[in-house]
């Protein structure tokens, strides 16, 4: 017995070894690297005044004295230790600005308006709204599509499944770009809406609330197929006996769904919610695709913006990445705790 137990451990080790290596290389190390980079900032720069000449004449300009900082860079290539400075600065948690806003505000409304002006909290307000509106809506919509497709005649099912999956197949960036042009005030959907509401000045892109609605509708449209596929697969496993006995007991279609189908699919709902909460917290492509950065930003968009400028802010981008990881963990903790309890109850 003992011998076979040892063998099992060894087998388990060799089975798990490739996965563990991959997890270490592609998950643990990058996170470690991002955390490290968020704790260091570049060395203080030494400036010198130099003459700069070009097609438009000569001018005295300030330039960086690279020789002066070279030795410092060689000695400490990571830069200077900054601890949590970047985490606490205005671009991130902005502790001193939040404290000042708290002191200066007479009401909660005023306080929220003041912190809504800080990049991190502005991004969070959109990200959380998006996440918590889109996720339940897409679960409901995906479930309804799955129920409808499941009750179709079998000849029609294939075609219906194919068309229901299309929004997910389209690359998010391309999908949002196409919709962006369609909802333009001169585009087909935009003009349609203007006609529908008989308001020739109606523009989805010029109003913050309408932009949010547009992004949320897009998010549901794009992610519903995922929920649909999962629920559709789940529907195939609903025990026929239970359904039949419910029918014999005189349960209506709604009662069958409510008391048999939904309880059966609950673990799948948890699974879809888990994946989608995580995905939507990292919302990025629609913001870029819809050119919506004036109205809505997200943590991922802040990272993109920090790295996309002429001067890259690596420490700032790393800090936002770490905050994103923390955010995802907090968001997922209730679902994970629940899964763990279910697992223990079964075990």
């Amino acid at each position, binding site marked *: 017995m003992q011998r076979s137990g040892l063998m099992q451990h060894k087998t388990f080790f060799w089975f798990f070894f490739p996965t563990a290596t991959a997890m270490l290389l592609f998950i643990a190390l990058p996170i470690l690297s991002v955390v490290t980079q968020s704790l260091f900032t570049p060395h203080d720069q030494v*400036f010198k005044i130099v003459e700069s000449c070009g097609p*438009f004449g000569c001018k005295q300009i300030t*330039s*960086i004295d690279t020789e002066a900082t070279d030795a410092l860079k060689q000695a400490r290539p990571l830069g200077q230790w900054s601890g949590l400075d970047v985490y606490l600065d205005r671009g991130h948690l902005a502790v001193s600005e939040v404290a000042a806003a708290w002191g200066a505000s007479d009401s909660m409304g005023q306080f929220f308006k003041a912190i809504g002006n800080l990049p991190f909290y502005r991004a969070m307000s959109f990200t959380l709204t998006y996440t918590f509106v889109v996720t339940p809506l897409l679960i409901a919509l995906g479930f309804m599509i799955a129920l409808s497709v499941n009750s179709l005649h079998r000849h029609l099912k294939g075609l219906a499944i194919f068309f229901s999956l299309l929004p997910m197949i389209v690359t998010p960036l391309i999908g949002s770009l196409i919709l962006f042009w369609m909802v333009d005030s001169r585009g087909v959907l935009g003009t349609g809406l203007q006609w529908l509401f008989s308001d020739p000045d109606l523009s989805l892109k010029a109003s913050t609330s309408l932009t949010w609605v547009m992004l949320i509708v897009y998010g549901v449209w794009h992610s519903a197929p995922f929920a649909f596929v999962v629920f559709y697969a789940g529907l195939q496993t609903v025990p026929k006996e239970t359904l039949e006995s419910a029918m014999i007991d005189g349960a209506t279609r709604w009662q069958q769904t409510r008391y048999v189908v939904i309880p059966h699919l609950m673990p799948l709902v948890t699974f879809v919610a888990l994946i989608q909460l995580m995905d939507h917290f990292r919302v990025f492509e629609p913001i870029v695709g819809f*050119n919506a950065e*004036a109205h809505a930003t997200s943590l991922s968009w802040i990272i993109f913006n920090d790295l996309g400028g002429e*001067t890259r802010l690596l420490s700032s981008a790393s800090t936002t990445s770490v905050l994103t990881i923390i955010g995802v963990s907090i968001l997922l903790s209730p679902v994970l705790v629940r899964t763990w309890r279910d697992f223990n109850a079964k075990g």
Partner: protein
Amino acid sequence: MFLKEITMAGSFALMASAAYAECNVSAGRVNIIGNEFPAIHAVVNAAKTCAGNGVEIKSNLTADHQLINLAGMTGKPAEYTSAIVANSSIVALMNEDVIRPLDDLVAKFGQDLRKNQLITIDGKIMAVAFMANAQHLVFRQDILDQAGVEPPRSYEELLAAAAKIREMGLLEYPVGGAYKAGWNLAQEFNNIYIGFGGEFFEPGSAKATVNNEAGIATLNLMKELSGYMNPDFLTHDSNATNSEWKAGNVALMNMWGSRVPPLKDTEGSSQVVVDNTDIAGPMTVGGGSVPATTLWWDGWTVARNISDEDAEATFKALVQGTSPSMLNAETAPMAVWLIEGYEPTDAAKGVFAAANSGAVPYPMLPFQGLLHSALGAELSDFMLGREDAQTALADVEAAYTAAAKEKGYLQ
């Protein structure tokens, strides 16, 4: 078809071999990274005629070049042996010390370069400019005629003209502009702020100083202008603004010189719009004399972390790419070339007017890019009416200060 391809291939081969003799590159590796627009394609294609006989010339031209050029030049040896940059983007490469001084190469192989092409910083040649660019006025002659106004020379005249055009019912949104939140919006602020005589930084320091009367006047003018723009203006970059122009919806805009040639194409436009699209110099603002625009150059650099052989090959290929022989009827209107033998075309008069009326170059400061990003991120709140000009400018300074502290520009 087949015959055509063969003759084309033949003529390319002939061109290549003829040029090969001319550029005299015998060994080395060349890989060019740069932005993506017709003028740069023309330069790189001309440089590629030096390839052959063991010399390979590669290029990666993309609008996202700034995201990868620094990383691609930091390694030893550097992946890219040259980056095509502008006066704003050369700063990031100089800050990290990844481009080499070109004095020795210019002395040996650059006799044909003109003095004003050489970008000299602290007495060292760091880049070779090949074209100039600036934003200036573009107007619709027919609409201005109907409204009975002259092409505006100041933003105040532009506002008056726009009001008249709207009043007469000629166009609902007569003014165009690349006001997309981010880089474009910040650039429009820079232009008008310079026109008002504003200074971006305290002299000799990295401390930003945009929260002042010039800054407030700039924002108020931008708000007034946006009242005459398509309500979606915060999503309109240069491409979208040009589409609006081509659709005939706009009569006045401040636009890049390099973006004007496509407006003269009837594709996606109409003959009326094409025939009546004309350009003039940049406008002034608030009675100032400095035009509300900035001057730009595009030029090429050579990487520091490469062998002397590769540096020499890169230099020679790019000298060939920007030599008088690359100018022809097709390439000449693509840009305002700084190359010897360039005869300005009609499309160049706006940029020339900018240079001759005392416009200033876009500042080449190590921290200008950070201020530009901060402006781009914080000004949309004001444009949307969510906060007043002073708060928006205070936000800009605060956002800039946080970033500049992180980068070690401010202590």
